[in-house]
């Protein structure tokens, strides 16, 4: 069995991906228990600081899911998320944090299966990477 102790802080937008996660539940699809969900209104609300804080507080990965590009409930919040998270990932590398520990992806309100797939893939990635070594630079 997978080690489901490595926390993956998962931000879901209220309109698409949160409902996608609910659909995974409705369909009783297995999702790793270390996917820990926080609901926000839009992926555009995610401050890079939240990602850094998640790592400081002990997370091994951060998953951010929004509406598919072009489908954002707020028109273009997810495009803002793309810009912010790409920049953040470049910065994380300089901190010695593997870029794969952060994943930004899209799940629509109907895509329960896709949510389960992305969640399982992320858990797999984090299991391979193992726990985040303590990084003094972050504290």
């Amino acid at each position, binding site marked *: 069995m997978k080690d*489901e102790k490595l*926390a993956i*802080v998962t931000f879901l937008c209220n309109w698409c991906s*949160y*409902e996608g*996660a*609910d659909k*995974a*539940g*409705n369909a*009783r*699809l*297995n*999702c790793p*228990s*270390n996917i*820990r*969900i*926080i*609901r*926000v*209104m*839009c992926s*555009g*609300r*995610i*401050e890079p*600081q*939240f990602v850094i*804080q*998640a*790592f400081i*507080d*002990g*997370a091994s990965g951060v998953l951010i899911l929004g509406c598919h590009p072009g489908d954002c*409930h*707020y*028109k*273009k*919040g997810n495009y*803002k998320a793309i810009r*912010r998270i790409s920049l953040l990932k470049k910065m994380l590398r300089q901190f010695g944090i593997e870029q794969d520990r952060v994943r930004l992806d899209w799940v629509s309100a109907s895509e329960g299966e896709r949510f*389960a797939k992305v969640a399982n893939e992320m858990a797999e990635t984090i299991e391979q990477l193992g726990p985040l070594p303590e990084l003094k630079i972050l504290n």
Partner: protein
Amino acid sequence: MQERIGVFVCKCGPNIGDKIDVDTIVNEVKNIDGVVTAKSHNLLCSNDGLEFLKEEIIKGNLSRVVVAACTPKMYEQKFMNTCEEAGLNPFLFHMTNIREQVAWVTPDKILATEKARKLCLAAINRMSFQEPIEKKEIDVQPDVLVVGGGVAGLEATLTLTAKGRKIILVEKDDSGKTETTESAQFRRVYLVEKSPCIGGVSARFEEVYQTMECAPCMLSPELQEVLQKENVETLTYSEVEEIVGSFGNFTVKIRRKARYVSEEACIGCNACFEPCPIEIPNQYDGGLSKRKAIYLPYAGALPNVPVIDRLNCLHLNGKECNACEQACAFGAINFEDEDRLIEKNVGAIILAVGSKLSDPTQFPQFGYGKYDNVLSAIQLERLNASNGPTGGKILLRNGQEPKSIAFIYCVGRKEKGYCSGICCMYMSALAHHVKEKLPDVKIYSFYTDLCLPKKEHQKIFEKVLAKGVEFIRSDGSEYVDYDGKKLIVKYKTESSVKSVLADMVILAPPVEPAKDIEKLAKLLDIPLDEHGFFSEEHILMKPFGAPLEGVFVVGTCQGPKDIGDSVAQGSASAGKILSRLMLGEKLELEPIVAEIDEEICCGCNTCIGLCPFSAIHRDVEKKVSVIDDTLCRGCGTCVAACPTGATKAKNFTMEQISAEIMEVAK
């Protein structure tokens, strides 16, 4: 003050109860500082459950409530209402999802319990940062601006003004006596139309697809009703110049162009036309007829008050002429008339400015403008109209009847990159009308693709086929030439290049946005699509709502469509407005919005460009950004970008999200 937190975990029968060790969680959270009550319930969303929750809140004098149950998409609102009934602000409540996102996706009970525990701890940790949010209401202006007097705008106007509302006010005076006063309230609509008359493009058609009825007959009851309604102010020959404000309260400046004919004095006898010495092509007839400098676009146009075209009038250009003034028995001519700017206050705006057929000279292969008898569909439409230049006769420029006509569909479709979707229908209708008037005429119809949706269209197409109209499929590369006597239409089929001879060629050019669209888009700061039509908020779910609250884009200014669809959108937009801008009531605003602390804001303007709803503006005096509550939808994109932390997303604050991260990241 120490918060008094209550935590309620729902077992949802066996759904959560069998998958998660609820008792362990309840026992653990009981001991957390601030938690005064932690209980489980078998079915919290049931009437029993809600009653239980309400009693617990009151009994425990709870100041914060956490519910761990199903997805908030199901019953969050129900629980919030219960909190409110118990006297607690609903935003002091938070719901965490341990059914869809835990119990149903995690078969291992130990792992599921651990995940649910973490989510409960996160919700409890959030509690100290929970803030009450008060519902905000604003006084609304129920009046509406409708721009464009075509079918969509007319329908919207009539729907909006169909019924007033009786307001009954009961007041008690000091002695306990009640006094009842009744007052009627009516919604006013300002219908602004750029041209001198209302009715739009549809009024030009003799017989409209698909009922084949006379458009002026179909429209005139509506036109008369609009003109006679007390609560409709029809402002023809007028243009919108400025719009400020937001949903519920827009201020609009309208330019009433000088008509030089008094609307009060003129009785519409049209005696002024005849003596006017100026003659210029009448664009309303596609330039096929002439009009005077004092004119109405067509006989019977409403309102029946002519205008003087200031560019062409001799008198207005310093020449000696007052022929119209002398001909008017009612003293209605006023050469001193000036443009006037008027201001109106409205709660919502419907843009129904329509579209136009592209100028076919853009597509030179068809010889339009080069050969006399190459006409656009709207010109044939006017030839066919009994109030048109030939009194309804289909004639060549030399006055003779055509023996053969080539209809070319899909003109410019390739260049424009979209199908106008109505040409196949009106071209069939035109072929039908021509065949009725000239049964022996030979008609060739060149098409690349036929677009015949809707329940009536195929039938009419088949009728036209039965009348002997020859449909020829080509690849869209038709070319029109002239041999000195006849027009030659050359076309390619899959195997060869062929040609037919015709006396007349009718083109169906693409429907394109009206000129005013760009100006209005700029005034309101709303987007246009790649073809220049207004963008709708969501093509399927909000097909006529502009991406700005309280603004609607209806009819063909949103994209090519037929009369029926335009009318439907006009009516639907009015319905949207009627359901929100109620007479005598207030407008409830979205509670979860962002706000800016002007003490902290450094005035960098970063947020302004990010807002997808143009809800943020700069207060020039204070040098800070300000969010308009009526426009903000609460996405929080501006909050994430604020470099100083001055911007706060209500119910999703930095502190609240951080508190959740702290627990779930462990």
